[in-house]
């Protein structure tokens, strides 16, 4: 676990009442949970096997890249140490609890992810991330710790997979962008004044849009997770 200094997290969007959030120092896993690590969880928790999982908690794509319930598959050897994907929010949350950890909050994750890379050159953080978003996904997902390490010592915060956060459903906006702004005022509380703080941070905008489009049981090819822990939790 890597300590992440607390700080203030300023969301890329703000409303008039929305001040920067204070984030307490916390611990975050050095890299995303891998297929091998997730297999241990599935072995210990049969209700999370692919054939047994409740569709309420994981859709039909859950672990679809594995050979079978308890076998990633020899032909998949290259991804043993790659981030596990095709996992739902419920599965990620349950894994974290099994490890006596938890999912990071959105503010924690964004704060940790905003630290600059240590070992790659880039014009700006945003351009580095956008460059990754733009790339076509590789046929085989690379192993963890193969992109960059940031100044906290965290690997692959951007560049391998998107990651679930505890409050992924916290971007309050209307479900239907076709609504006129007049209608929107009644759909959600305090949402009318939403504004963007940093128009250059298009990468953050994409992440918010992506999270907004998720449901808790979605399992998709580019979405994994890593666990967090509070310092107090540790004692």
């Amino acid at each position, binding site marked *: 676990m890597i300590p992440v200094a607390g700080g203030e997290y300023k969301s890329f969007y703000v*409303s008039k*009442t*929305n*001040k*920067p*959030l*204070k984030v307490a120092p916390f611990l975050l896993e050095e890299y995303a949970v891998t297929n091998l690590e997730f297999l241990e969880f599935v072995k210990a*928790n049969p*209700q999370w096997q692919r*054939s*047994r*999982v*409740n*569709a*309420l*908690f994981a*859709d*039909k*794509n859950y672990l679809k890249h594995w050979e079978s319930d308890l076998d990633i598959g020899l032909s998949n050897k290259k991804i043993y140490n790659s981030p596990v994907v095709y996992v739902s*929010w*419920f599965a990620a*949350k*349950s894994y974290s*609890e099994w490890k006596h950890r938890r999912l990071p909050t959105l503010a924690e994750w964004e704060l940790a992810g905003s630290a600059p890379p240590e070992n790659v050159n880039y014009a700006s953080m945003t351009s580095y991330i*956008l460059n990754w*978003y*733009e790339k076509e996904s590789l046929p085989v997902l690379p192993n963890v710790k193969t992109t960059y390490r940031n100044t906290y010592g965290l690997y692959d915060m951007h560049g391998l997979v998107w990651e679930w956060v*505890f*409050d992924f*459903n*916290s*971007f*309050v*906006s*209307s*479900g239907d962008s076709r609504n006129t702004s007049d*209608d929107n005022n*009644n*759909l*959600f*509380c*305090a*949402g009318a004044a939403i504004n963007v703080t940093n128009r250059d941070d*298009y990468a953050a905008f*994409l992440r918010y*849009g*992506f999270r*907004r*489009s*998720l*449901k*808790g*049981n*979605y*399992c*998709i090819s580019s979405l994994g997770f890593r666990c967090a822990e509070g310092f107090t939790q540790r004692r």
Partner: protein
Amino acid sequence: MKKYNFLFFAVILFVGCNNVNTTAVSNNLDEGKGSVAKNSAVAPESIFNLTDTFQTQKKNNIVLASLSGKPTVVGMIFTNCGYACPHLTADMKNIAAKLKGNREKVNFALVSFDTDRDNPEQLQKFASMMDLDKDWILLHGNEQAVRTLSVLLNLQFDKDAEGNFSHSNLISVLDKNGMLVYQKEGLDADHVETVEKINELLK
């Protein structure tokens, strides 16, 4: 920029195409937690699979499955909310009034986002202030339970630096088995259909 826009929508389309209906074998989110839902026949896609414990305004500990047997109208609110939440509550009261003779056959539940301030005492105060009769159930839960419920109901909420919340204004209808059957977003929404759906469930 255009390219990125395209990517953004491609992502949304991709995610949007994810179908949810699959074979389902009943299991609870966390088999170690709670006992009520564990051995009873909770339908696989029922919200009652959430086994976390909530506290009522009367300080009773309950799991959502204890609401089974009657349809339930659910709203998520916080009592320090100046405008939207009293309004949403009033909308639910209107639904109750429109049910007329069927009113007693339906549960009305309000679940608070505010895990810090909305303890049972505060919820009881809110119930009195809003003139909610004893058939209403107001629930306090921990952060995990409340977030999980919001995810199951596909509802967004966010806590700001001052401890207040922005949130979807959403009224959900569960059938007597906890299946999500209908949702209506918005304040002062036309709830004719909501009432119709509830009445259908009672047939």
